[in-house]
């Protein structure tokens, strides 16, 4: 009981002494914490930006049809080893699409996707490098996205090989400057020299991995085929109901093996790609960045910690007589140790708090002035504060130990 009371009283006293000593040397305290401030600032800013990137990447992935499988000849993410093997595979095409539409009980939507870069123009105005994509009428359901004005492609557009087109906002802005999306619907444009009717304008999607997502034109894949030929590599976007992606995966594997006549015992000659594969690769990359940030942070914290150790040694030296007095009045070694540990931890935590604030501010400024996003999770702040306080304790322990082991007689006599 009294032991707890005494320990508590000593802790409070230690805190009081620490704050008194620190406010008595404001400039020195500020300079001491500078190292910690810089270290924590760096780490918090980097972590904030990485977390912001992660979050925006994940939300964009989400918009992309998280429940969608992309049937392709090759693996999108890890094109490992023998790409000839992939290249010589039978192309994915209408046979597979029809088989899926006919046999799948799980798929909610399926659409082919085939692209080319081509010029799109209207009178004098033209845009030379537009992504022209041939799709089916279920494309939006399968892949995500929505129409801002007009309508998307209909099954009849596909079946009748109509010259219907849905344009992205970048294309609409370029060819019809100042016009509202509604005004663009019903206009005519030339895609690779061929006239198309604009039936709809897509909603703006922004950028993904630094790539403009709105510089595109969607046309029926049938029309696409008659215009650009059927040799271009096609893939199929097939959507599952939420939570049933693994079921769809196994069902599609069966359907496709039959449709492509893969003999039993032979490996699949197709790949069911998923968007979250990108996420894994991406997280691998940012994981490495995290490592670098933590490394930089640790180095600066060590430098800051040495600064704290230095100033604490000075502080102990300056207060030799005070230590002697306290020991004479009944302070135990542990009490003196605690007093100086509290002081160094407080200095470091102050630096940590300041560094966190500055780091967050820098991240915000970067987020506002560059395309980079910034977000801060409470864990990052806790990490910054925790690490800096730890640094204070670690590097303050030797000076505190020295203070605690001063000979009271010598300390009292010290001039």
């Amino acid at each position, binding site marked *: 009981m009294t032991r707890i*009371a005494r*320990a508590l*009283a000593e802790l409070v006293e230690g805190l009081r002494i620490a704050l008194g000593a620190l406010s008595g040397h404001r400039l020195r305290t500020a300079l001491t914490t500078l190292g910690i401030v810089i270290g924590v600032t760096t780490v918090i800013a980097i972590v904030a930006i990485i977390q912001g990137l992660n979050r925006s990447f994940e939300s964009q992935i989400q918009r992309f049809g998280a429940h969608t499988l992309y049937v392709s000849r090759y693996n999108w993410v890890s094109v490992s080893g023998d790409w000839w093997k992939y290249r010589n595979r039978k192309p994915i095409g209408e046979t597979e699409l029809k088989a899926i539409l006919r046999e799948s009980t799980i798929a909610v939507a399926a659409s082919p996707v085939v692209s080319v870069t081509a010029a799109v123009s209207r009178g004098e105005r033209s845009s030379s490098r537009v992504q022209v994509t041939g799709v089916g009428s279920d494309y939006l359901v399968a892949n995500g996205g929505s129409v801002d004005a007009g309508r998307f492609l209909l099954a009849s557009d596909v079946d009748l090989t109509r010259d219907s087109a849905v344009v992205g906002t970048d294309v609409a802005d370029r060819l019809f400057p100042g016009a509202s999306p509604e005004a663009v619907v019903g206009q005519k444009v030339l895609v690779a020299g061929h006239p198309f009717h604009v039936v709809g304008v897509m909603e703006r999607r922004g950028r993904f991995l630094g790539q403009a997502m709105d510089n595109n034109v969607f046309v029926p894949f049938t029309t696409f085929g008659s215009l650009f030929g059927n040799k271009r590599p096609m893939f199929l976007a097939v959507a599952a109901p939420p939570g049933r992606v693994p079921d769809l995966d196994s069902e599609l594997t069966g359907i496709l093996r039959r449709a492509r006549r893969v003999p039993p015992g032979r490996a699949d000659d197709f790949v069911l790609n998923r968007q979250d594969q990108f996420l894994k690769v991406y997280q691998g990359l940012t994981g490495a960045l995290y490592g670098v940030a933590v490394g930089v942070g640790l180095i600066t914290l060590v430098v800051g910690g040495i600064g704290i150790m230095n100033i604490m040694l000075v502080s102990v030296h300056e207060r030799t007589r*005070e230590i002697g*007095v306290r020991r*004479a*009045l*009944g302070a135990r070694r542990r009490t003196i140790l605690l007093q100086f540990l509290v002081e160094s931890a407080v200095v470091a935590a102050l630096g940590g708090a300041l560094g966190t604030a500055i780091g967050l501010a820098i991240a915000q400024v970067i987020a506002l002035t560059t395309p980079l996003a910034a977000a801060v999770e409470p864990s990052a702040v806790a990490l910054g504060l925790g690490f800096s306080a730890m640094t204070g304790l670690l590097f303050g322990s030797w000076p505190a130990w020295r203070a605690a082991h001063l000979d009271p*007689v010598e300390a*009292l006599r010290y001039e």
Partner: protein
Amino acid sequence: MTDALLALDGIARHYQVGSEPVRALDGVSFEVGRGDWVAVVGQSGSGKSTLMNILGCLDTPTGGTYRINGQDVQGLSDDALADLRNREIGFVFQTFQLLARSTALANVELPLVYRGVPRRERRRRAEEALGSVGLSERMHHRPNELSGGQRQRVAVARALVGDPSLLLADEPTGNLDSATGEEIFRLFAALHGRGHTIVLVTHEPRLAARCPRAIRLMDGRIVADGPGRDVARIGADGGAA
């Protein structure tokens, strides 16, 4: 014998300075009873300071036994010595040794902080101790806002606040002018009158002469122990009896 507050028997304190052995104290034996007022006199180098450090449990003897309040300090741990100082000893130093950044009140509270006394109780007792040395009006002043005499009064209040068995004063008037020194000396006399046990270390025979009892040290040995007036006179004659 067991009744004495302080009992020293054959106390020795030897140092090694380089290859030279120094016998700061060499077989010092005496007792101090409760309520006694004893002056320790001697020239510098006589062993006064060493004796005071041992009496105050800041240092431990290399030989002999020292009992305070019946407890042998030999073999006590550092923590136990700290607790013993806190409970049994009230120090008054020549240079006051107040904490500059703390108020008089906070300075006086300090021994109670290390004893784990609750805050309110601490405050009450510190105010009381400051009142008993006539400083109720200056409690919230810092040492640099106080005169030398007032500072030493704060130090005396700090020594008294924990209600220790022994007041141990090391040249308490050494840094004061003679009028203020006299004032502080009278304060000790008054405390003696109230029953406190006091050991006063001084090099001034004039002060020792006014103490009921004095011990004269020379070269680490007791050369005289008797009524203050007699012991002081030996010093005034200029050396050993």
